[in-house]
């Protein structure tokens, strides 16, 4: 792998010279390293699409799999399909960071389509960190699509973070939950300059006692624009909560469009949305502790996006 990939891997996947588990490292559309383990098999996509299949054996305990993807130069349009088959009762962490870098005028783009088939009682933690780097004029774009099907008693916790350098992102996430399945999504997003970010969540709660909690926290600065769309569909006795909190600065624009669809009288769905600048009182409080105004603002944003 090249130096830029190594640096990006450090940012998006905590890479320090090696990974402790199964992994596949994708660089500019090709595979530069791959390792399966006894319980986690990584293979080429059987439908012949660019991308991978990750098979986690039933009952696997606390193992990790890393599938980071990096684009390290302009004029690369990377598209990958990764399918995850998680066996019943398995417990795994999947780290799927993506870094796009360009030092030239060409566009660096990564589109990742991730599908999760999560077996009965399995527990998945999915970490997805996105970053754009480099000094080139070329746009850095990341458009992830995530689809998840959770069987009975399955659980997925998705942490998704994008803290700058990506000119445009369109993020689509769709999930379907069977009985007692649980989905938690935590999104952290920061945009600046002329960047744009769109987030679109659709969660369908089909099974009794299924539950979801979708939390998006974002900071929009400069002239950036963000759009947050969430839709929770309750088809059974279920509970759903979505929350969009945005801090607005400069001339940025944030739109939040929540939708709740209840098709069962025992569906309990809630949405909360709050958009506004940093509360002046918060800055005052931190200044009384000796921080300057700038330090206070940075600390508040850092905590908010933690």
């Amino acid at each position: 792998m090249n130096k830029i990939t190594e640096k990006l891997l450090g940012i998006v996947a905590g890479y320090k010279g090696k990974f402790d588990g199964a992994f596949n490292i994708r660089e500019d559309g090709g595979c530069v390293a791959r390792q399966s383990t006894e319980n986690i098999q990584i293979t080429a996509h059987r439908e012949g699409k660019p991308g991978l299949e990750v098979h986690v054996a039933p009952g696997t305990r606390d193992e990790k799999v890393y599938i980071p993807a990096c684009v390290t130069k302009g004029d690369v349009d990377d598209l990958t399909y990764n399918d995850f088959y998680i066996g019943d009762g398995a417990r795994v962490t999947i780290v799927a960071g993506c870094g796009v870098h360009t030092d030239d005028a060409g566009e660096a783009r990564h589109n990742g389509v991730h599908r999760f088939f999560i077996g009965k009682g399995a527990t998945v933690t999915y970490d997805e960190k996105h970053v754009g780097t480099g000094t080139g004029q070329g746009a850095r774009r990341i458009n992830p699509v995530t689809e998840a099907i959770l069987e009975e008693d399955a659980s997925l916790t998705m942490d998704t973070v994008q803290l700058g350098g990506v000119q445009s992102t369109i993020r689509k996430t769709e999930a379907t939950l069977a009985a007692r399945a649980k989905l938690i999504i935590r999104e952290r997003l920061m945009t600046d300059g002329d960047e744009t970010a769109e987030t679109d969540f659709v969660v369908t709660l089909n099974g009794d006692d299924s539950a979801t909690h979708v939390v998006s926290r974002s900071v929009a600065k400069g002239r950036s624009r963000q759009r947050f769309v969430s839709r929770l569909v309750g088809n059974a006795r279920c509970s759903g909560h979505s929350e969009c909190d945005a801090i607005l600065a400069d001339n940025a624009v944030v739109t939040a469009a929540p939708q709740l669809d209840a098709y069962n009288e025992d569906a309990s769905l809630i949405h909360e949305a709050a958009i506004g600048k940093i509360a002046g009182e918060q800055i005052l409080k931190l200044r009384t502790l000796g921080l300057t105004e700038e330090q206070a603002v940075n600390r508040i944003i850092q905590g908010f996006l933690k």
Partner: protein
Amino acid sequence: MLEIRNVGWTLPDGADILKDVSITIGEGKLVVITGPNGGGKTTLAKVVAGLVRPTTGSIWLDGKDITHMDITQRALQGISYGFQQPVRFKGLTVRELMELSAGHDLDMDGLCDLLGKVGLCTLDYIDRDVDGSLSGGEIKRVEIASVLARGTRIMIFDEPEAGIDLWSFNSLVSAFERLKDSHHTMIIISHQQRIIEIADEIIVLADGGIRLSGLREDVLPLLLESEMAGYCPVGKKVIA
């Protein structure tokens, strides 16, 4: 020594919130400011901490005029202020707020010591966000602990008793007494007799002016008398 010299603060509509207030607070003294609601107590505290700039008058610290200094500069000069209405933060934990206040990392012993003074069980709270999930009493205690964490030479507490249960209140009063023993200067805005009883000096602020001030042993009997009468002592009266 902290001096408030002829401080006035007027709202844009012309209403006088503070009128020619002068107070001198000696090193290591505990001064309790009390008086009816709307009398100007919180505004006066904010003037000292730099959150409100006075319309007239000046603030002096150790013979140096600090009126022009902003909030941050005054904090760095050793002035701390505990808000009457604590501020809530999404994404800042109790531990992080304590460490920001202290200016360094804190170990479990340090955190236990701080939070214990305000009656909070450390393990239950350190990783909780200082946000809407804390009750009014809990966040008030966290706010007080943030001032204690700074441990600066001058500490201002604005109605520290508000929302605090009896058991925690006892340990809070003990914490104030210990600070007094270690020669910290404190200004406490309070209506609580237990706090007024540990003051060196008492100031009654009403209608933006000092109505009564002096040593605790002189002022407290008058306050208790007036409490029986159901009104605030009338007219400015300074007891030497």
